[in-house]
């Protein structure tokens, strides 16, 4: 299987379009001038869950804050549903913000308000009357599974529950777009998964476009259909999540992917890895397989075809964007004959391979 060519969503199908967007922070006080975003162009497909991943300081928060005008671009335009955010005045921005939900890493719930009161806040701000608010909030609490907690205060909730309230609050004004700034970064892996499941469900059931930023590949892998990798204020790679994961092009992407379980070589192996083979060495090769290949008994066939000893060093079977995907690191004789047989087998089976190095 090959990488499907990535075509950006057509302008009409895009919920958000960044067009040559730059953000330059002027020098102030002790901090010097800084270019946080450098001519970023990106479109977010309507109804998609699009991820933006990058390291700390890459410009992710700055980018997402441009969408609801919490930050103004210093160059280029940001279009949300065709509306130029940078051109809106304060009143226009407020109206836009009521149609864009946002959730945060630290939840940002009001400690002085109950769960109900927190979810009601955006509706009060929008000037909705009490009865209508009541009618709107109840089903939202049901949706996030916290109807029984409506009279509780945030301090009485767990992190995951707080984020559910954050999500209910973000959905209160029935937005078409949900922005998520590291919404799961303060949560443990299990809670992260349950929050991601909730986001997926909302995306599917309500047709909501989700733009999420994160520094965790796990998050991107679990929920997004599309991803962009941002590094030092530039988009360095973008595409369908599956393609980017299986064929990372940019070194930043590779580096971030290497943190995923199953991608990392055992230390003992990576320490002994050499760039060139000496006599009697073994080649360490990463096999990536997806689709039908992920379901075939590849390993026994591989051992049969190569004819020599094959060690399995690391491996994982997983799903990315709902598609099965496997990654296997194996070692076999680096001599021309064995290597030749192995390569033939890989080609015949449509496996993507990458020689990581050689070990004695």
């Amino acid at each position, binding site marked *: 299987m090959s990488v499907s060519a990535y075509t950006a969503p057509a302008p009409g199908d895009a919920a958000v379009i960044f067009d040559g967007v730059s953000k330059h922070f002027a020098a102030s006080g002790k901090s010097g001038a800084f270019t946080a975003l450098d001519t970023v162009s990106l479109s977010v497909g309507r109804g998609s869950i699009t991820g933006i991943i990058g390291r700390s300081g890459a410009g992710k928060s700055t980018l997402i804050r441009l969408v609801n005008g919490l930050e103004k671009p210093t160059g280029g335009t940001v279009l949300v549903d065709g509306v130029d955010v940078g051109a809106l005045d304060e009143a226009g*921005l407020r109206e836009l913000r009521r149609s864009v939900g946002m959730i945060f890493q630290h939840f*940002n719930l009001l400690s002085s308000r109950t769960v109900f009161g927190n979810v009601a806040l955006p509706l009060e701000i929008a000037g909705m009357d009490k009865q209508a608010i009541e009618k709107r909030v109840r089903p939202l609490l049901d949706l996030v599974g916290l109807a029984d907690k409506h009279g509780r205060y*945030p301090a009485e909730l767990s992190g995951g529950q707080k984020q559910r309230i954050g999500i209910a609050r973000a959905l209160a004004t029935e937005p078409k777009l949900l922005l998520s700034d590291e919404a799961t970064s303060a949560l443990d892996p299990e809670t992260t998964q349950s929050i991601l499941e909730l986001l997926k469900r909302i995306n599917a059931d309500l047709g909501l476009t989700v733009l999420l930023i994160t520094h965790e590949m796990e998050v991107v892998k679990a929920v997004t259909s599309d991803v962009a990798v941002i590094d030092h204020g530039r988009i360095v790679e973008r595409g369908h999540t599956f393609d980017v994961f299986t064929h990372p092009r940019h070194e930043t992407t590779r580096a971030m992917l290497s943190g995923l379980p199953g991608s990392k070589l055992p230390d003992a192996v990576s320490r002994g890895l050499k760039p060139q083979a000496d006599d009697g060495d073994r080649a360490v090769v990463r096999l990536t397989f997806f689709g039908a290949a992920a379901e075939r008994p590849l390993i026994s066939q591989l051992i049969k075809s190569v004819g020599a000893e094959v060690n399995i060093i690391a491996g994982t079977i997983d799903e990315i964007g709902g598609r099965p995907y496997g990654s296997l690191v194996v070692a076999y004789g680096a001599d021309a004959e064995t290597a030749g047989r192995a390569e033939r087998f890989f080609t015949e089976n449509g496996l993507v391979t990458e020689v990581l190095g050689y070990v004695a």
Partner: protein
Amino acid sequence: MSPDLLLRIGSATLDTLYMVAIAGLIGSLIGLPIGIFLATSGKGELFPAPTTNRIVGLIVNAARSTPFIILVVAIIPFTRLITGTSIGTKAAIVPLTIATIPFVARLVEAAIREIDKGLIEAARAMGATPMQIVFKVLLAEARPALTLALTMTIVSLIGYSAMVGAVGGGGLGDLGIRYGYQRFMPDVMLVVVIVLIVLVQLVQSAGDGLARHFDRRSRKN
């Protein structure tokens, strides 16, 4: 102690309460918006006006650093203008109020600056106006801290009100000076001090209790 003296102590206590209440009320009503302004008008904040912010800050600092007793004397013409007199309980309310304003302003500013910036960000992201943010987020979230600030204000006012007694201001301080000190009646002095202590204790525990009641930041039960 003679019934006459007891009566005097009772009425002096009422005078003190009266001064504290009026000065506390007016001073807080004026100090609160100034405090909100100080906390929200810095560069890039809700109502950006950095220059005005700095000027108001300077005035507040100047007022805070003027010793109270000097303030009392310095504003005598102003006091006379407002109350028609410069001695007595009513006259004492003017300097007490003036001293309360910057005191409250700084406490309110500190209480609001304590609030997590993320909450302001979240409210902005919901499309809140700056005024909505002040009322629905800042004042609501700062309520426990504001309650404590008000408590501290009243406690300080009780102290200051005793001080105006020294310049003929009426109230418990006045009584203590005139009887306890000038006529050398230590028992009067003692009673005055005890009443002041009890007042301060009552105000402080009521304030603490109320603040705790408002504070939802940690788990209860």
